[in-house]
């Protein structure tokens, strides 16, 4: 299939700003789905609210555009009801880890079989450039004119500690890597997380004098490095990319199915 076949053409052009990284994530995701040969009717995309969440409108899957931060909770209901469906849940950084942080850690803890994508532009794009819990100290934002003092989460540490069985990080500069990770995450049985640094030239870029999209991408290239690499050892201040967690564990759906089976057999 052609990647274009996964898109609802009547909703294009999309609403993202020129140079926005979110489109790159969409592209990589569609390529990954195409590569896996997943039928459109087996895929459910659930999103919250934010620029990132707009993705639900553009793809020709079963799509649900829900509430800010709550996408994983809705997705949990869908997955428990229809375990055979493939669930993909793209979220903004604020969506996933500020307002939705609780749902994120609990979905990871349960190890529900679904893929969470954190489209991390280090800012609240949709609402006009306020800082997020992934912005980090020193980030300038419309609610941090003197620079944020808020420490940032490391999404990978958080995912790992909470029990995610697959966790990977990359950026919109590393498109091939991104596609590979998405493929790895979707095929992984259990809760998988892919964090993608995505550029928001409109707010993050402007507020932090990073230059426009190409320059922001260059910063992703230069500011990140593969985990386990020599380069990282020499430059520990760089941000590691790669697969941080990939392990097998019983996923919640399986565990629940077994609970049901046992409950039936113990019945008189």
């Amino acid at each position, binding site marked *: 299939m052609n990647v274009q076949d996964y898109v609802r053409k009547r909703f294009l052009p999309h609403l993202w700003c020129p140079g926005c990284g979110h489109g790159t994530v969409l592209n990589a995701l569609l390529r990954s789905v195409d590569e896996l040969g997943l039928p459109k009717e087996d895929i459910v995309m659930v999103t919250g609210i934010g620029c990132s969440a707009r993705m639900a409108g553009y793809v020709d899957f079963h799509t649900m*555009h829900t509430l800010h931060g709550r996408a994983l909770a809705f997705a949990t209901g869908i997955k428990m009801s229809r375990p055979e469906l493939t669930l993909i849940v793209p979220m903004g950084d604020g969506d996933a880890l500020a307002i939705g942080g609780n749902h994120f850690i609990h979905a990871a803890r349960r190890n529900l079989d679904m893929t969470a994508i954190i489209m991390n532009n280090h800012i609240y794009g949709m609402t006009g450039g306020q800082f997020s819990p992934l912005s980090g100290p020193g980030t300038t934002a419309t609610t941090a004119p003197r620079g944020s003092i808020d420490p940032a989460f490391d999404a990978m540490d958080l995912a790992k500690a909470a029990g995610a069985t697959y966790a990977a990080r990359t950026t919109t500069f590393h498109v091939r890597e991104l596609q590979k990770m998405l493929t790895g995450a979707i095929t992984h049985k259990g809760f998988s997380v892919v964090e993608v640094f995505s550029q928001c030239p409109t707010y993050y870029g402007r507020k932090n004098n990073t230059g426009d999209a190409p320059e922001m991408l260059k910063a992703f290239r230069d500011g990140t490095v593969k985990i386990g690499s020599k380069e990282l050892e020499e430059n520990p201040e760089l941000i590691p990319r790669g697969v941080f967690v990939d392990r097998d564990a019983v996923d919640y759906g399986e565990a629940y199915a077994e609970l049901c089976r046992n409950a039936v057999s113990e019945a008189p």
Partner: protein
Amino acid sequence: MKDIRFVQGNEACTLGALYAGMDFFAGYPITPSSEIAEMLSGELPPRGHTFIQMEDEIASLCAVIGGSLTGKKAMTATSGPGFSLMQEALGYAVMTEIPCVIVNVMRGGPSTGLPTQVSQGDVNQARWGIHGDHAIITLTAGSHQALFENTVRAFNLAETFRTPVILLYDELIAHMRERLEIPPEGEIPLVERLMTSVPRDVDYRPYLAREDGRLPMSDFGGAHRYNVTGLYHDMWGFPSTDPSVVRGLLSHLVEKIEGREDELTFTREYEIADAETLLISYGSAARTARQAVYEARDKGVRMGLLELETLWPFPERKVRDALGKANETVVVEMNLGQVFEQVRRVARHPERVFLANRIDGRFITPPDIRRVLRIIAGKGVWA
């Protein structure tokens, strides 16, 4: 043989939900509703149905909506603090027209309030807890038999009107035990989801209502791929800010409920025909009111009771009809007058409507009602 049980109200509600075919429950423990989740955690798995304890009430209602969208009869149960947390998702269910049942076993509020005591303070929250104009269905019950029936009814109405239905009852009903007769299967008709007849690969418009206002549904993840959003949306479910789309959707959402008062409002009448004094009550307070009616009748006083089982949409016509015959009306409830205000609003003579209430976490008594009647009669209170 009749299936008679001696159960708590929360069990009556649970049994009603199972009778209605509820096959998806997500919840978070909170007094005085927890018995529902406890019982379902045992009942649902052997049936192969979903029970999940979520991380909070927000997640619970979100999961319920997800479960329902994929074809399940879904329910959650909570109390005031949890119901407050659910408001955003409740609005989403209203906007996206996803059927579900939300049980709110009332406790005294605001805040943590009186977790284990009786109150009826959430009547207005059920109506207006969510932001924006909307309509909502809220049922209540004053006995376990009625609770069972109204739980089934809640699912039926949710499916018929594709809307969340709130089942609001109080701690006294929740925890008290009394007789419940479970009707044989089939005795109470069940409404199953109206499914679309549009075949696969033909343009299905999930938000195009039929002439009768009903929306045929396609299970999410099934034959039709469509979009669901809490934004104003067109008949395909895609966001729209077109004024005619916005006006059309909002009026549809309101009209499908407000326009069907007669189908949606349920009441019970006791000794009303010749009543000079009319009591209006609901939930456990209606038990006290009925007791007061019988005690009055024993003394030859013409008193009657209109018991409301639908709180929203407010049964305006039925209340107005009943008011017309009485000299004075006393609303009996355990709050500061939430239904009282509605009765006054619809009354032709609001000055003849009075309130007998309690707000201290104690169950309202027949003497509480008689005291108000004495004041109305100009006899004062014999303190």
